[in-house]
Every structure is written in structure tokens, then in C-alpha cells.
């Protein structure tokens, strides 16, 4: 059993590491072609992210948002659904958290306020996701199309709400919340001073643990994965696949929605348009790299957050777009290399045992 576990771990880690190496080599070429030496640029990238507390705090903050959208997409993929709507679900969740935080009296006990805001964010994100879920299960509309289109509708609607009704004078954000503040990490570790990282990361970790338990230990998770792997076999066995899809899509949207608290409850304490732009789409890559495993997603989120924050750190040497390109190369390398490397890995293991 432990040998099998080690084999699984190898399968999970080695291909990713090799994909990263490929990305680094491509990055080298890019940096060299820009007329810089790769060594100092990478050192800069690491120093600006994991090399100092502020940079690390920023990485943790970005990773938290990506962890939520990544887990949202992972749970959908486990059920065989491609939720491209995390982009608008996180925005809707963030708005809900902000509105509830504004509505709550300042005297509300912290923990209760936080929970109420989280629930509001989850309900709103899940509510947005319920639309493609219903359209898919009742009318057979493909969730990819619906969630993409819904991104435009929801984001435009929220944008209108903010600019027409909810914004503060001279700004594009709402009023500040009265309750539901999630403390920043700097309040416990002063070294993080100025960094946006906050206790939302704890929420992300708790969600990851709960999601892992749900997926791999609960009966519903068993049914969800069966429906995702082989819907016809699930249907044959008496599992209502439509029911599973409905629940999985809503759960996916809810997790993405809760991701909105990272900015709203933990960082700026108001809703601002575009606070998580790109997080929904990058979440797809995070889920892919994390192999749809909640803990894998946490690690992948850290990786992508590092590259994103690192882009800012290397700005003095090379255009920060290089970091964006690196992210893209990681995604391509992983999607192309992982199956191939896994195949080679399995083949080599066969030779050893044969």
C-alpha cells in the first residue's frame, strides 16, 4: 500500500517538476533573447517572492484567490463539468460579502459576521452557477458555452450596479464594510507588514480539507466522481447524473464565490470592480496542474501566485510580461508534458519490475 502511495506521489510530482524545468529553459531563452542573463533574473524573481516577508505575503494573498477558483474548477472537473464561470462567480461572491458586510451593524461579533459574509458569498456564487446547472440538466445546454456567456452578463450587471448605484463618490468601489473583517497576517506576524495576505488563507485550507474529505471519503463524493469518470456507468448503477451535475456545479460556484472574501473581507474591505480579474481563468490552469486534487490545487496556486508576483519583482530587468509568458509556458508544458512524462514513468517502472 505504501509502495502504491509512493508511486502515486511520484506520478503526481515528477511530471510537474519536469514541466517546470521545461518552462524554466524556455524562460532562459526568452530572457537571453531580451539581452539579460537568466541567473540574476530568476534570483530576482525568487527574492521578490519567497525571499522577503512582504513578497511572500503577496504570494500568499494571490495564491488564496487562485486556490478558491482552482478548487471550484477542480470539483466541477471531477464531476465531468467544465466551469469556465469562476471569473464571474468570484465577483458575485465578493459583491455579496461586501453588501452583507455593509448591511451588518458594526457591533456584530466578528466570527458571526465573518461566517454570515462567507455564507452570502457562497450562496451568491452558487446561485450564479445554478443557472448553467439548470440549463444543462433541463435543456442540455453545454455548460462551457453558458458559463462563458454568463461571465459577460454577470460582470456587466455588477459593473452597472456599482457605477449606477453602489459606488462611493469619485471611486469605482462600494462603501467599506462595517463587520466581517478578516485580520491580515501582519497582525500575527509583523514581518508581513504591508502584505495583503490575510486569514482567508485559513478558510482556503479548511475548504481544501473539507473538499478532499467530501470527494474521496463521502458517499456523495463517490457518486460525483463516478458520474464524472463514466456518466453512463453511473446512470446504470442508479446514480442520478443530472442530480450530481446540479449539485457539483452549484458547489463549484459556491467555492469560487467564497474566494471573493480574500479581497473584500481580508484586504480592501470593500467591493471593487475587477478585483479578481483573470483569477477564474487562471484557476483552470491551477486545477489542471493540481490534478483536480484539493491539496494539489493549493500547491499549484502557490506556484502560479509566485510567477504572478515574481513578474512584478523582475520588472526592472525584463518586461513583466515575461512572467506572464512563463505562466503560459508552464500551462502548456504541463498539459503537453504530463501525459508523456507519466507514460515514460510507467514504462520505466515496468522495466524495473519486469
Amino acid at each position: 500500500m505504501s509502495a502504491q502511495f509512493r508511486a502515486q506521489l511520484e506520478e503526481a510530482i515528477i511530471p510537474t517538476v519536469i514541466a517546470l524545468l521545461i518552462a524554466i529553459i524556455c524562460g532562459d531563452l526568452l530572457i537571453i533573447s531580451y539581452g539579460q542573463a537568466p541567473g540574476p533574473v530568476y534570483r530576482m524573481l525568487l527574492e521578490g517572492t519567497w525571499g522577503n516577508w512582504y513578497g511572500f505575503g503577496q504570494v500568499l494573498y494571490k495564491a488564496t484567490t487562485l486556490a478558491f477558483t482552482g478548487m471550484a474548477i477542480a470539483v466541477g472537473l471531477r464531476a465531468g463539468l467544465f466551469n469556465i464561470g469562476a471569473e464571474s462567480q468570484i465577483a458575485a461572491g465578493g459583491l455579496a460579502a461586501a453588501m452583507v458586510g455593509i448591511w451588518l451593524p458594526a457591533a456584530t461579533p466578528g466570527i458571526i459576521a465573518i461566517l454570515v459574509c462567507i455564507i452570502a458569498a457562497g450562496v451568491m456564487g452558487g446561485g450564479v452557477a445554478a443557472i448553467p446547472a439548470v440549463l444543462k440538466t433541463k435543456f442540455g445546454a453545454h455548460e462551457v458555452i453558458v458559463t462563458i456567456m454568463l461571465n459577460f452578463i454577470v460582470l456587466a450587471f455588477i459593473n452597472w450596479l456599482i457605477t449606477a448605484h453602489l459606488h462611493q463618490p469619485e471611486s469605482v468601489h462600494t462603501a467599506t464594510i462595517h463587520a466581517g473583517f478578516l485580520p491580515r497576517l501582519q497582525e500575527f506576524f509583523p514581518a508581513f507588514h504591508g502584505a495583503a495576505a490575510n486569514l482567508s488563507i485559513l478558510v482556503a485550507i479548511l475548504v481544501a480539507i473539507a473538499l478532499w474529505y467530501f470527494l474521496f471519503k463521502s458517499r456523495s463524493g463517490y457518486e460525483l466522481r463516478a458520474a464524472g469518470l463514466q456518466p453512463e456507468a453511473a446512470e446504470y448503477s442508479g446514480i442520478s447524473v443530472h442530480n450530481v451535475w446540479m449539485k457539483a456545479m452549484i458547489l463549484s460556484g459556491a467555492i469560487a464565490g467564497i474566494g471573493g472574501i480574500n479581497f473584500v473581507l481580508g484586504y480592501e474591505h470593500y467591493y471593487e470592480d475587477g478585483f479578481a480579474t483573470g483569477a477564474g481563468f487562471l484557476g483552470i490552469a491551477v486545477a489542471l496542474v493540481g490534478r483536480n486534487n484539493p491539496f494539489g490545487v493549493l500547491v499549484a496556486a502557490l506556484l502560479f501566485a509566485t510567477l504572478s508576483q515574481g513578474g512584478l519583482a523582475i520588472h526592472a530587468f525584463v518586461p513583466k510580461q515575461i512572467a506572464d509568458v512563463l505562466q503560459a509556458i508552464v500551462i502548456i508544458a504541463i498539459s503537453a508534458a504530463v501525459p508523456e512524462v507519466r507514460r515514460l514513468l510507467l514504462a520505466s517502472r515496468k522495466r524495473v519490475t519486469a
Partner: protein
Amino acid sequence: MTSPSVTPAIRMTGIEKSYGPVHANSGASLEVMPGEIHALVGENGAGKSTLMKILGGLQAPDSGKMEVNGRDVTGWTTPDAIKAGIGIVHQHFMLVPTLTVAENIVLGMEPTKSGLFDGDAANAAVEKLGRDTGLIIAPKRKVADLSVGEAQRVEILKVLFRGAKILILDEPTAVLSPPEVKELWAVMRRMRDNGGTIVLITHRLDEVMDLTDVITVMRAGKTVGKLVTRNTTPAEIAKEMVGREVVLSARDKMKSGVSAPVKTAARASAGLELRNVVVTDPLRGRVVDNVSFMVAPGEILGIAGVEGNGQTELIEAIAGLRKLVSGTISIDGKDVSYFDVAHRREVGLTHIPEDRHRRGLVLDYSVANNLVLGVQNRFSSGGVLNERKIGDYSAKQVAAYDIRPPISAAYARGFSGGNQQKIVLAREMGHGFTVLLASQPTRGVDVGAIEFIHAQLLAARGEGKAILLVSAELNEVMALSDRIAVMYRGQFAAVVDAATATTEQLGEYMIGAKKESVA
């Protein structure tokens, strides 16, 4: 029979091939002379397919030597094999349904005229090839409109068009009706008489006896015997295949008293009863057309018929996977027409599906997880799976159904067809039920497993279960059933007593040459 002056068309010696800890081939050999029809037989997982993949250049052997027409070709690639005239007709059709017959056949080496596809030339070439081989088929028909027999003809034409002189057929008759099989045999004999060499992979010993000249038997990756067809018997071949004596007919076993027939009047209500059931398909109309029957407890009702005459839809309707347009289905006297799949299972229905890869198993679930599929409620409390209970149950079922290798944690995907089917059986028959739907229960399964599955079905019958058996294997239906219904174009063409039924009589109903009005 092997004169030293003739060079073998195929000669493979000492072939070794491992996939991880599994030795797919170890000490496999094959020698086929030109102009013979050679049977390659063996249980599932005996290594036949691997050996053919190596021959076709899809896999490289770990060691061993391979010669084609005297030339050493060890470790060649697929294009080499095609160039040398090796043509493999796969078990699963690989055709593009939206293209015509001719377009499919020339695909990859299309005739062109000034750089454009020359459809007329393709049609003419296919027509000529058809005349030369006897595989007549209209080149302009769409593949989507063909019957399975015709589609297979296209597959064979496809490899012949590529100049195949050595034809390898992987279970070609699994999906054919008896007349189609006869036709295929005629074509193969003709090809042999014209100097072609044919290797036939099959599970059906009657075919082997009928058609082939020489038989190579494989067991556990090794070639264990080479027999001359006219000097051997099916029992001898079966013994070589599994390494022990095999009871070929389930009926022999019944007669020998292993499972005595149960009085059908033992219970007042029918186990399974259908009244005027109609099922429609958006494309094909009434696929099940006003079918009524009952299956008593302790009875096996066999449904024979060429595939595609509504058997699949009938079974799916009973299982709750398809909606009824009209009619009623009752289990144990209880109307379940509007019950969903899970609810029907609770009432006592269990179902061995015809396609274990699509429906019967979640291939990327472990054996243990597959064994509780559909009954996961019984293996969880408070919404949490009881892993210990699942593990214990799995260990018990793996032993009881002799699932090999006996590893509960292994993915179902990695098992051979016969063992996958045992997983399905272990699940579907592993808990209380009153009605069993067994659809193609032994398809693609080796002789040893067939024997085991038949014994399980008969044991269930002995315990008073009502069993509805659908099989494309007429012999199987005849051996196991108490009554036989023949399905033709969505209706029961006849229901006959199995004791008096003959192959010829059933065959006529199967192809629609005869019809008896069934109440």
C-alpha cells in the same frame, strides 16, 4: 504437414513482452504457413492480442524473433507491416460513419486527379476489389447506414485495399448473424484458395473446427500447443486453453444434476412481467414494438436475435434507463413502470449490462469501488463511506468470484475482459435480488470464465430467481434457457420451448424468414 522447403508466412519464436509485472507474452510462438487459415485461440489475457500487436508493429517485443516470409522483421513498425502485406481487422470498427464505403476504404491513400480527390476512381477501385474478393458492397453507400456485417466487410476491404496478403481477424463474428457468418466464411475460404493467409483470433470453438486448418493455443502468455484441426476435437482444444477439462455445455451440467430445474408454479406471481411495452428511438422509431412476456421465478427466458433488433432497448427499458412510451413492467407483481433505476434496484432488479466498459464498470475506479457501485448506500453511514466494510466485502467477493489478480485496490481498467465481467457479476449477483437481466453475459470472455458465468446463472435459477438472458450467441441461449424468444424488428417473432428448439428453426425467425404470431 510442414514441409521444410516452404517458408512460413509468419514465424514468431520466443516472444517476450511485459507490461509492468504482467508478462503478456513469455515464450510465445506462432508459425503460419502460406495459404492456410490458422486459428489463434486462448483465454482472455492469454496474450493473443499482444502477439498480434507485435506482429502488426504496434508493439515491440522485449525479446524474441519474428520473420515474415523468411525475412527477419523483429521490432518493425506499423508502416513496415502494412508494406509487407500484414492486414489486421480489429474487433472494434474504425470507420468514419459520415463518409461513404469507398471513401472509408481509400482513406489515407486516396486516388487523386489534378490534386483533388477522385471519387469515381475510388468507387471503381472498390467495386473491382469487391468483385475480386466476393466482398460485394455498394461503394457509394454511407457507412452510417450499413449493418454490422456490412461494416465489417468494409473493414476487411480496407486492409485488402492496402495490399494485405496476410489477414489477421480479431473475433470477426462476435457481432454477426448466422447467415452473415456463413458469408464471411465463404469469403475467407476463397481468399485462402487464392493463396491468402489468414489468422483468426476467436473464442468460438465451433468456428475453429469449421473453418481453420491449424490451431495455435496460448495460455498465460505462452504458446502451449499446435493442433491440426481435422485431428482434434473442441474438448481437446478447450482443455489446452484452460489447462484442465472443461464442461462445454451448461446443459450437460444441468442434466448431471448440478442444478435441478425448479417448479415454475412454485410462486403465484411472475418474477418479471411486461405488458404491451413500446419503446421508441428518435431516429429508428418503435425499437420495441408491443412486447409482452413474463419470466417466472426459477426460469431463464432467453432472447435470441441478431443484434440491433431491439434487445438493447428492451433491456434498458426494463432496467429503467429508457422511458416507456406505453405498456407496463412489473417486478414481483409490483408495477415499476415509473420507477427510476435506483428504485427498481431496491425492488429486486439486478442487471448485467451488455457493455461492461461503457456501463458495467467505472474503469478508473478500483475493484472495491466498483463492487459497491449502485449499492454504495449500504456501505456508508451518515453519508460517509465505510472503507473497512467495503474492503472486507471486496476481499470476500474477489475470492468468491475468483477475480484475478486478486487485488481490490487495482483499477478495473487493468483487468482482462473475463475478470472484468466477473467483477460485474460479483456486484450484480452479490446481494439479494429477484429478477436478473443478463445481457451478453459472456461476450468477449474466455472459455473458463464462460463456464463460470453459466454456472452462476444456473445457480441463480436454482435459487428461484427470474432471469432474462439476452445473447448474440445462439448456443448460449439454447444451452441455458427454459424458453427462447426470438426478437426481430422490435417484436417477438416466436417464443419456443428450449428443449425442442433447433438452430435452424431459430435462425429462420432471427432473419425474419418466419414469423409466428405471439400473444
